[in-house]
């Protein structure tokens, strides 16, 4: 088995490394420990997220999984030309999830999932070198997914359900690189909105060609978070602020803003294979349509007008590999690796989501308290290589002013959960 895994690792590390944007792939402790595979894994209530069709094949009448992780993520930025060195001071991220499944009868199952698949909490030192792009950003979204699954045969099930998303955003940046009030306080704007709601859906198919092999497919629709009339708070704007070209006074008083942030559609296909009784191997391939995210456009209702920050994301793939070993009646151990491609393209590397390609190393174990209850621990280390990149689409005086440097990020996320089977 080890040989097989190392072979796959060797094969893949050599090719492109792969994730990204503001997607946080921590939707279940058991599955995270297996490289966040799961589209073809039938294990616990967590499966409801990875593939709604899998509910049909779960053991037990009712399954419950609950869990959370603590994300310690930091980014280092340096610029050698000017001797700049900065570290983020990100607050702890805490993605959490709750899944409940219920088998109404032999062919019909119901479920409910509550989880947090998107979020970004990046906090740079106020007024740092990239403060004209971002001082801090905090995106949060919670998804609620009522789900239904139908077992068509012993070898095939389908499932799906609507997704209700509720999110919030807070984003602060300086207006440019040098505007201040007369005391030198940098002019900045905070946009903030809570309770942004949107709808989407998920669909899944689970096929069991043999006793040991599962094949799964899952489609998650795009969900677009639209802000209309959020609060825009302008700070430290000069009282007599005017347009130097025309001499006209500019109104930068506090007001409202409109914006839209896409959470892209995702397609996942994968398989799982049981071997030597105690082992389970899983592979997922994710394809996320990040190319939806062309620009962050914020429309203000004062003279700040429309601020367009091109993002030009590309579609991104993720390859996930997981392995589970039932070592003991009381213990199940898991490990995994994934190669996460960043949707961020060269020249669009903005410090608000400083994500380049990464490799996730995962591990975890379940302690089976009894036949019904298990405690699931997970651990993720997300490795980013150093990257020299820039954001070239910020404008001052009508010309593009690149913000370039070397970035290095690092993420560690320990997590804990409980699974209950009735």
């Amino acid at each position, binding site marked *: 088995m080890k040989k097989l895994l190392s072979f796959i690792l060797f094969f893949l590390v050599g090719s492109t490394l792969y994730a990204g944007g503001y997607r946080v792939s921590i939707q279940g402790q058991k599955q995270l420990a297996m490289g966040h595979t799961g589209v073809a894994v039938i294990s616990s209530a967590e499966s409801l997220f990875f593939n709604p069709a899998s509910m049909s094949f779960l053991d037990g009448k009712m399954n419950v999984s609950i869990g959370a992780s*603590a994300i*310690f*993520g*930091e*980014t*280092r930025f*340096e*610029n*050698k*030309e*000017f*001797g*700049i*060195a900065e*570290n983020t001071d990100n607050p702890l991220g805490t993605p959490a999830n709750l899944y409940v499944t219920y088998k109404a009868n032999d062919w019909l199952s119901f479920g409910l999932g509550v989880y947090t698949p998107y979020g970004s909490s990046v906090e740079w030192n106020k007024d740092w*070198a990239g403060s004209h792009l971002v001082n801090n950003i905090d995106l949060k979204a919670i998804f609620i997914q009522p789900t239904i699954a139908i077992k068509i045969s012993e070898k095939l099930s389908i499932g799906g359900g609507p997704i209700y998303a509720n999110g919030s955003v807070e984003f602060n940046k300086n207006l440019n*690189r*040098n*505007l*201040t*009030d*007369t*005391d*030198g306080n940098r002019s900045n704007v905070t946009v903030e909105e809570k309770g942004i709601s949107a709808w989407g859906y998920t669909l899944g198919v689970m096929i069991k060609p043999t006793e040991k092999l599962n094949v799964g497919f899952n489609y998650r629709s795009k969900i677009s978070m639209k802000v209309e009339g959020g609060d825009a708070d302008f700070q430290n704007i*000069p*009282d*007599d*602020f*005017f347009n*130097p070209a025309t*001499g006209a*006074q500019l109104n930068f008083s506090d007001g409202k803003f409109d914006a839209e942030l896409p959470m892209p559609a995702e397609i996942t296909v994968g398989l799982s294979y049981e071997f030597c009784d105690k082992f389970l191997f899983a592979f997922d391939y994710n394809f996320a349509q990040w190319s939806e995210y062309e620009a962050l456009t914020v429309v203000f209702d004062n003279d700040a007008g429309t601020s367009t920050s091109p993002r030009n994301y590309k579609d991104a793939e993720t390859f996930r590999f997981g392995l589970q070993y039932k070592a003991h009646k009381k213990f199940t151990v898991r490990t995994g690796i994934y190669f996460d491609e960043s949707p961020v393209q060269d020249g669009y590397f903005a410090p608000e989501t400083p994500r380049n390609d990464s490799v996730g190393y995962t591990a975890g174990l379940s*302690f089976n308290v009894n036949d019904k209850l298990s*405690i699931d*621990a997970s*651990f993720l280390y997300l490795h*980013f290589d*150093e990257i020299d990149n820039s954001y070239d689409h910020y404008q*001052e*005086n009508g*010309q593009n*002013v*690149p913000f370039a440097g*070397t970035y*290095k*990020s*690092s*993420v*560690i*996320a*320990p997590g*804990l959960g409980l699974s209950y089977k009735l």
Partner: protein
Amino acid sequence: MKNIKYIAIMALGLVACEPELDNSVEDAEFYSSGNADFSRFVSVGNSLTAGFTDGTVYRLGQQNSFPNILAGQFAKAGGGIFTQPLVNDNVGGLLLNGTVSDLARNRVVLAESEFGIVGPASIEGVPTTEISNRLTGSFNNMGVPSVKSYEVAESGFGALSNVNTFTAPAYYSRFASSDTASILDDAMAQNPTFFTFWIGSNDVLLYALDGGAGVDQLGNSDTSSYEEEDITDPTVFTEKYTAALATMTAGGAKGIVCNLPSVTDIPYFTTVPYAPLDPTNPDFGPQIPTLNGIFGQLNQVYAFLGVPERSIVFSQTAPSAVVIRDETLVDLSAQISAVLMASPTFPAFVQSLGLPPGTESIAANLLGATYGQTRQTNANDMLVLPSSGVIGTVNNASVAGLMSQNIPQALAIQFSIEGVTYPLEDKWVLLPMEQTLVANAQASYNATISALAAADDNIVFIDMQAFLNQLNNGGIGYDAGVVTSTYASGGGFSLDGTHPTARGYALIANIMIDEINSSFNATIPKVNPGYYPTVYID
């Protein structure tokens, strides 16, 4: 058991999460000081070293002084702490014994006037920096606004008793180590390993700023007889500068010296055009026929006296030159009065002005006295920046003077319009002859500076004259545009028209870093001028 494991993992997470670069700019050897040593860096100079900008010294300006910017970059290559004699506030100005001193001004910002026009204006607020409240400790930035070459080594220069009518002691007194110290003593007491020495501008600039109202002291070596707005004798300059620089280098320190940018190339002298009177201005345009009628009488007199070049004519279609008093002209007051009195048409002219019969001799004398030494400006004259706030306004002293001679108020006002009917005084204009004196003195000073710098390998020479030429001719590019010397909008010069903005100082620091790197084999990183502000808006 699980809890312990969880806590252990959390702790691991906290420790292992700090991302580090393989080759960090914070590594000790990343940037090199080469064969220079920045551990004790001291700057000696005038307002340009102090971070003076927008007409005064204020905190933000000091934080963006070129020595402070340099020190920030030196710190990446072994540089030590850099202290500055920070003032109290961002208002600028000084207090002397609790009273606002007229030796310093409030800072100039762009503000909206009561008429809704945005323009330069003094910031509101009361200065809080007390001259007599002497700071303790030593200061790496020994820049003293207004100081001249012969004053840097003057003992007791900062004594409070010396703070009377001159500006420089007022600034130095705040942070002098004692009443007997000199600026140079206080600098050398810090045993500098590296220095900047940029002195001499005020030896000629203060004369020019005042429109050449002072005296060229060429040949007079007795500096105790100099006034603040005089030109220093170049022989005195060479002697004092040579001695001061020898002191700076005596301890083996390496450093930078700068020559003096061409004084008359700064926006203070290049912003107000010689012909600023706009015929489309509703306060001026409609008056032009009347004015030309009045001056027509005078122009005939000029023609009769053989000085037709002094004729005063205002155009109704193009901007006109202003009327100035030129003290280099022969004074023809008496002749003008006499010719007017002899003219058979003069009584009718006087009556046309609304004056009663019998006032001809008063009118003739007044016209002679006012226009006896005047002419309109031409392209060779330089109107100083503050003249823009004076031209076209009513000179109240003139109105009072005329009314005391029984001239009706309306007529008195009509003959007291600055630059139109009331000739601008000497201080508002730098005449060609005065410009020549300025240029000669400056050329001589610069020859001294470059010769001394060339003779010492430990000294890097910075050509600030070339820097200003560049700002004047196309500007200096940075990542979001071009910095030029254009007043208010060019980005290089602050609202006083004389001193750089923070961005201008950043450019100066970068030029110095380039020279340090090439001369001392160092690798100090530059700063990005785009991050430095230009003019401030209220």
